[in-house]
């Protein structure tokens, strides 16, 4: 009888733990990159040059990684939904690092000014080659502002 009870407790406990682990995994959200250590720290020009030189090897190196990028904020825009997008890089070039700012960090982005230096941390989602004549761009998502 005692053994049966203990077994039942063990079974229910195990099921509860499995359910909890499964639920946590299922509802997990992407981490705030302000709390994540960068895999790479580079200048905007350096990152663009790496992709323009050999996008296939740069993809292998940077894709999906957390990257901290510094450079001049060439252009900043805010869309109708209130989200900010930053173009960082050399003002004389059409190429840029395009940072889509994490919506939880809009207030930090609002304080930025164009033509000043900035450091952001974001997750690299790839490289848009200049096929439409608009300039190539390295894309970073979920960006947070590190230095204004």
């Amino acid at each position, binding site marked *: 009888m005692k053994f049966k009870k203990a077994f039942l407790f063990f079974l229910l406990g195990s099921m509860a733990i499995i359910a909890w682990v499964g639920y946590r995994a299922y509802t*997990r959200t992407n981490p705030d990159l302000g709390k994540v250590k960068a895999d790479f720290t580079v200048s905007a020009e350096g990152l663009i040059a790496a992709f323009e030189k050999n996008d296939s090897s740069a993809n292998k190196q940077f894709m*999906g990684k957390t990257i901290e990028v510094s450079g001049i904020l060439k252009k900043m825009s805010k869309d109708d939904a209130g989200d900010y997008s930053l173009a960082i890089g050399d003002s004389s070039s059409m190429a840029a690092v395009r940072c889509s700012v994490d919506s939880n960090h809009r207030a930090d982005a609002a304080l930025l000014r164009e033509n000043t230096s900035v450091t952001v941390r974001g997750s690299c989602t790839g490289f848009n080659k200049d096929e439409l004549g608009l300039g190539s761009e390295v894309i970073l998502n979920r960006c947070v502002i590190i230095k204004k």
Partner: protein
Amino acid sequence: MRKLILLFISFSIMAAAGLQAQGKFYTKTGRISFYSSTAMENIEAINKSVVTLLDSKTGDLQFVVLVKGFEFRKALMQEHFNKEYAETDIYPRAEFKGSISNNASINYAVNGKNNVTVKGKLTIHGVTKDVETTGTIEVKDGKPVIHSVFNILLADYKITIPRLYRDNISSTIRITVDGSLEPLK
């Protein structure tokens, strides 16, 4: 004489606005979101770095989007989307190349909302299909704002949903496209 000068200036401004209105427009911060609805759950993802180019003279319209840039609320969904469904390491880009069928009826120099029909080729997951959809181009202060909502069948683009998840993911996905375009100088 003064009136004549004023008239000349007004004409010059209108001509300059007209010239700008008949050029190319672009954005690199367009938005594409998709939505799947089933009895089990709703799935939504958004990409905020869509490159869009519109030639207002010809009506040619292009979109390019890096598929890995779609953000989901749940990280696990995003991982499954990239690895198992969209296979973004193999097919990193989706694109649309087409034109506005009724472009001649749009006056890009005048504020207002225009209903449009767009035809072209949509490439997703390495598969290119002919598509035709409707939408709007609203001209606001000489800048076009585009909006369109349409559905695609995942099977058309050879995206297979494992049997285990068929109750969670709809076979039809609703796609919403938005972009506020700037004149290309």
